[in-house]
C-alpha cells in the first residue's frame, strides 16, 4: 500500500524541484553560450551532424510522459555524472591543446563543469528525499576509450555540449513533472504506486 507523502516532504520536494529548475535553466543558458564559443574556437560547422558517441548520454527518450519520478531522477543523475567526467576530460584536452591560448573557453568549460556537479548533487538530494538509494558511481567502470585524434576530440566535444544542452531542457521538464502537487517520485503520471 502506497504511503502518502507528508506535507513537509511534499513542500521540500517542490522547493527542491523549483530550485533545480532554476539551476537547470541557468546551466542551459551557459551551455548554449559555451557551445557557440566552442564551435567558433574549434573551427567547426555549427550545423554539422555528430553521430552518437560512446559514453555520451543521449537526452532523447521515448514515452517521456510515462516515466515515473524515480526513473526521471535516476536517468538524470546518471547523465550528469557522465557529463561531469566528460567535461573534465574536455577541460584537460583543452589545456593540452591550447595551454593558456584560450583561457576564456577553459574558464567557461570549468564554470559549466561546476554547474553540472552542483546539479548532480541536487539530484542526489531529491533522491534522498524520496528515500531512494543513491546509486554508487562506477569507480571501476568501463575502461577509458581509445585516444581520439584532435578532430575526433573536437567533434566529441561538440556532441557532448549539444547533448548537455538537450539534457538541461529535459531536466527542467522532468523536475516540473516531479514538482507537481499530485506527483510523488515513485508513481507514473495517473498511475497509483503498486503495493
Amino acid at each position, binding site marked *: 500500500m502506497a504511503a502518502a507523502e507528508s506535507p513537509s516532504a511534499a513542500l521540500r520536494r517542490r522547493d527542491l524541484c523549483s530550485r533545480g529548475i532554476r539551476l537547470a535553466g541557468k546551466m542551459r543558458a551557459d551551455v548554449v553560450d559555451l557551445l557557440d564559443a566552442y564551435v567558433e574556437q574549434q573551427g567547426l560547422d555549427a550545423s554539422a551532424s555528430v553521430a552518437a558517441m560512446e559514453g555520451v548520454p543521449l537526452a532523447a527518450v521515448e514515452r*517521456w510522459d510515462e516515466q515515473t519520478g524515480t526513473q526521471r531522477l535516476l536517468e538524470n543523475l546518471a547523465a550528469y555524472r557522465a557529463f561531469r567526467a566528460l567535461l573534465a576530460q574536455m577541460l584537460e584536452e583543452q589545456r593540452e591543446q591550447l595551454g593558456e591560448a584560450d583561457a576564456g573557453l577553459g574558464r567557461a568549460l570549468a564554470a559549466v563543469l561546476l554547474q553540472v556537479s552542483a546539479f548532480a548533487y541536487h539530484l542526489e538530494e531529491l533522491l534522498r528525499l524520496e528515500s531512494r538509494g543513491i546509486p554508487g558511481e562506477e569507480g571501476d567502470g568501463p575502461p577509458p576509450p581509445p585516444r581520439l585524434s584532435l578532430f575526433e576530440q573536437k567533434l566529441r566535444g561538440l556532441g557532448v555540449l549539444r547533448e548537455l544542452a538537450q539534457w538541461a531542457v529535459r531536466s527542467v521538464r522532468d523536475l516540473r513533472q516531479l514538482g507537481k502537487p499530485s506527483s510523488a517520485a515513485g508513481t507514473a503520471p495517473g498511475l497509483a504506486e503498486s503495493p
Partner: protein
Amino acid sequence: MANPVPSACCVVLAAVVVVYAQRHSQQDSHIQYERVGADVTMKCGSMDWDAAVTWTANGTDIDESHLNGSYLILKNVDLSQSGQYSCYEGSSWHLKYQTYLRVGTPPKEPVLMCRSNNYPKGFYCSWHLPTPTYIPNSFNISVIHGTKDMVCEKDAVPKNRCHIRYLQLFSTVKYKVTLTVTNALGKNFTTLTFDEFAIVKPDPPESVVAKPVPNNPRRLEVSWQNPSSWPDPESFPLKFFLRYRPLILDQWQHVELSDGTSHTITDAYAGKEYIIQVAAKDNDIGTWSDWSVAVHATPWTEEPKHLTTEAQITETTSASTSSFMAPPTTKICDKGAVVGSGAMAVCWTAGLVVAAYSVFFI
C-alpha cells in the same frame, strides 16, 4: 399478359443510351496537358491527313487557318485555349476524336513550413505552390528522423497539411522533411531540415480581454488564456509578451511576463483608447507566437460633475447674512480680462475660496 412491344422498345433505347454514353465517356476522358507557350498538334483520331474534317473548340468551329490537313495546329498556346476540342468527319458530322486540352505549367519549387503548436505531442507541415500551375498537382511528403522513416498523416482539412506524432523527445537528431510536387508537365521538390526545438511555436493566446479598473484612470486590466491547441500548459508552461499603445501613438510599450495569464497596465494615459495584444512562447524553447487578436480599452474616467456657474456662486454669496462682503468674482474671472487656461483656473479657485469664506461667516 404484359405487352412485349413497350418492353422491347425500352431495352433498345437503353442499349442506345449505353453505347452513346460509352462512346462519349471514352472520348471525354481523354485529357491532354500542354505547357504554356508550347505548339500543339492534334490528330483527328485515325482519320487520314487529307480527310475533310471540322474541328471545334468548346462547341465553336475553329477556322481552317489552324488546320494542316486534318491536323489541328495550335501555336504558342496560352491558358485561354484550355477546353474541349472535337473533330468531326466532313459532311457526316460523325465525332471522330475528342480531347480536353489543359494548358498549364510544371510546378515551381513548393513552399514548405513545419511547426509544432502542440508540443510535445507532435508537429505539422503545410505547403503551397508559389504560383499556380492551372493543372492538377499531387504532393508527396517524406519525413526522416535519423535513419527512421516517419509517417506524416494527411489532414482532411486543410488538404495541404499533414501531422506527425513525436516518438522521441529531446533528441539532437534533426528531422528532414522532403516535399515533392508532381503534375503532368513536371515535378519539383523542397527539403527542410530542423531540430525538435526550433519549430516549436504556439498559437496566439485566446480570449484576450482588457477592462478599465474602477477609480483608476491610468490602469487597464488585461487577461487572456493559453491557446487551446497547447496540450499541457502545466508541464510545458508558456510565457507571454504583452504590447500596448494608445491609438493616437505609433510606439508600443512591451511587457514580458514569465507566468500568469493576466497583467495590469499602470501607466496608461487617462482617457485614451488603447490597443492591446499578447503573444506566447514556450518557457524554454522555440519562438514567439503571432500576436493575438487586438483588443481595445479605455481607462476609467470620472463622471463629469455638474459645473456651478458664476451666477450661482454670486447668488449664494450674496444670500448669506455675513457681514463680510465678498468681492465680486466675475470681474476677476472675466474671460476678456485673462489670458490662458491657467489664469482661468486661478480665477475659479479664487472665486470658490471667497465663496467658502462667505458661507463660513454666515
